[in-house]
């Protein structure tokens, strides 16, 4: 699941997100998506200190957005000064695909939990409102954006795009920028782990139990604050971080 260095290099090309939002606003039919795009996004040179963020985590039935579904969503809004539990949200939703045993072991959400849970569409309005006008922060961007996009396409035939800051990718930039030399491999060096738990430990953040969407969202927000505080200036333009 780790990103290869080639991938990171290829990603440096930037989108013009403001323009993309305006284009989407003109073509989408769904009112909720209209409202989301109408709120707009930030110019690439906006310093991160003036950006409102929201950390988001999904627990899913698997790793493939096409065949797997979302079972829970956690999010917490924040800015560089503070994380606000007041705006935190947590939903359990009913995926359209079956829960398998392995994923139940991971996130602890069981069949009986989701039986009484609403379908994704019942909460999507609130979810999009919570993301509106904020930059989404996730740990490993292969999950939240593709799964939300796929879930919407399945249900209303319209997907969604938005920029994300990926704390795992920020960690990879530091620790995986260069592959190990032959000598290092020979000496048994291993690349440092960039999993959420291990990354947090590097910044002396406390251990939180994993795989609860809200806790993981909070854990991601804290990790981002720590990364900024150690490695970036508050005046860093958002374009250096988002993807």
């Amino acid at each position, binding site marked *: 699941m780790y990103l290869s260095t080639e991938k990171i290099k290829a990603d440096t090309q930037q989108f013009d997100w403001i323009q993309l939002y305006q284009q989407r606003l003109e073509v989408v039919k769904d009112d909720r998506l209209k409202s989301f795009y109408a709120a707009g996004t930030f110019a690439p040179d906006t310093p991160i200190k003036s950006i409102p963020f929201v950390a988001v985590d999904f627990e899913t039935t698997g790793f493939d957005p096409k065949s797997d579904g979302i079972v829970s969503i956690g999010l*917490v809004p*924040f800015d560089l*000064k*503070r*994380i*606000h*539990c*007041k705006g*935190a*949200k*947590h939903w*359990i939703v009913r995926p359209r695909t079956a829960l398998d045993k392995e994923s139940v072991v991971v996130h602890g959400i069981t069949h009986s939990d989701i039986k009484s849970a609403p379908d994704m569409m019942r909460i999507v309005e609130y979810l999009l409102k919570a993301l509106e006008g904020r930059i989404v922060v996730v740990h490993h961007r292969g999950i939240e954006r593709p799964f939300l996009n796929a879930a919407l396409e399945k249900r209303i035939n319209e997907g969604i795009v938005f920029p994300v800051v990926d704390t795992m990718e920020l960690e990879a930039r530091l620790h995986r920028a260069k592959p190990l030399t032959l000598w290092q491999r020979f000496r*048994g060096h*291993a690349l*440092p*782990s960039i999993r959420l*738990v291990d990354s947090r430990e590097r*910044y*002396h*953040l*406390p*251990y*939180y*139990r*994993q795989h*609860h969407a*809200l*806790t993981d969202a*909070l854990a991601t*927000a*804290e990790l981002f*604050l*720590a990364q900024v*505080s*150690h490695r970036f200036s508050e005046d860093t333009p958002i374009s250096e971080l988002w993807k």
Partner: protein
Amino acid sequence: MQIEPIEVLDFLRRFPPFNCLPEETLGWVVSEIEVGYFKADTQILELGQHVDALHVIRSGAVDIYRRNGELYNKMSEGGFFGEFGLLRDGKIRFPAKAIEDTLIYFVPLTVFNKLFDEFEQFADAVEIEDRTRLRQAVARREDANELMTSKVTSLINREPVSITSDASVHEAALLMTESSISSLLIMHPSSHAMAGGLAGIITDRDLRTRVVAEGLPYTTPVSEIMTEELITIEANQFVFEAMLAMLRHNLHHLPVLQKDRPVGVIAISDIIRYESQNSLFVVSNIFRQHSVNDLKGLVSDVRASFIRMVNEDANSRMIGSSMAVIGRSFKQRLLELGEEELGPPPVPYCFLALGSMARDEMLIVTDQDNAMILDDSFDPKQHDAYFEALAKFVSDGLDACGYTYCTGNIMATNKQWRQPKRVWQQYFTEWIDNPSLEGLLHSSIFFDLEGVWGKTEWADHLNDHIVRKARQSKRFLAAMSRNALNRTPPLGFFKDFVMEQDGRQNNTINMKRRGTAPLADLARVHALAIGSKARNSFLRLDEIIEADILPRGRGQDLRDALELISMVRIRHQALALERGETPDNSIAPENLSEFERKNLKDAFQILSNAQKFMKFRYQGAR
């Protein structure tokens, strides 16, 4: 449904001033919390700055300064600051600086004010001027309660790291280095019948002693060097149970299981962190001392740890086991030191603990009861000078450390109790086959026996021998039960007197001789009769209850009686220690509370009835 972050809730619940708040209030507080991160050496609050929240340290460390720049306080996890500003004009008078990377939970002003107005305990906790002192008092109580009431899971601070048993020791070492861990769980590989199950554990030490020191190749599979017969603990057990298991088996790493699946490993340091004066700390200190004189210096720590456990409402089992583990450690360290001084033993031997130490029922006032089993190749002329000297070294050392010489001379210094294995077998055969009252009067203590050093398996062999023979000998059980009736409880108390069963009056009562000892004797007789291998009286009673040889409910009554009498005895000793007096087992009735009097009377009645039943059962109605 849980809408506030559970990690924040769990954290606040543990610390004052939040631990006094009702659950629903706490939930609301958590939903209003804000979180911030400060890297090491950054200012959190400047002098005169406006403050809008109570700052609670979630992790890291913070220095608080006075106006003049002098250091005022150092705080870590659970500490809070900023309240002086909140309570007055909103201006910071004690600036704060992160000295480590620090995560702060902010409790916004509006929330703080509401809590302050509505909850007196909260207000008291944040308003106290000299909070350092209060904090210590509360934290001490809290730590202890946590030790008694928190589950093992609260100690787990990372996911378990594991490798399959077919991996090489090199791969294992790499994984341990990468994850910075000192122990690694070994799982059965997928080809194994128990695939995915826990197969063993290896530690840093194993890599040193079993691989490097042995010169094994790095390709050796971990399965060849791992420890297989694992002691583990269930996630829902208490921290103190984990502590006892680690003490008992001298473990530094204990895997935690949940439904047979490992969920983490706790290290001894995780428990020692709980407090510094606990018995674990004393034990690890014992093994760091290098002379009898050094060991003597630890006596006050032993007493302090005893007093603390009493004040912290530990039960008698926990206190008894902890004290026994400490006593055992003194013995073990003395034997190590003795062997250093006298050289290695000429033939193998096993050092025995007898009586309360073997039963895990040791208290602070106790004499030493010990013995030695020597190898059958032992030749008195050639070897006994060594073992006599070693026994004397240990015995003198124990006496110096507060375990006084045994008045009955049941010590390894006595030649009679320093004998080869086959002689010990004969002793027990004789005691069981030809029981005499005189013989058993002094030997019943040998039926609670435990190997603490050397060939400890020999002690197990002797115990097996005893368990096998004893239950089949009616004469022996009858003699043991008669012996157990030598000591009886009093009838109760009347004004300032102890009222004896025959109407006589005494001024004091010996709680050991009249209470816990006859109860232990009684449990021993029944345990031998049912072939139980348990030594602790509570465990014996559990097995006796299971064997269903007592009238319904009486076993549980006996457990309660034992706990009550033990605790009165223990509290009495702790009180004497705190007053600087010499603790003993005698209590004057005027020193008993009304509650204790009433309950003790019931407990003595239960013991008395149980003795009658024992007499009836093993000696026949005569």
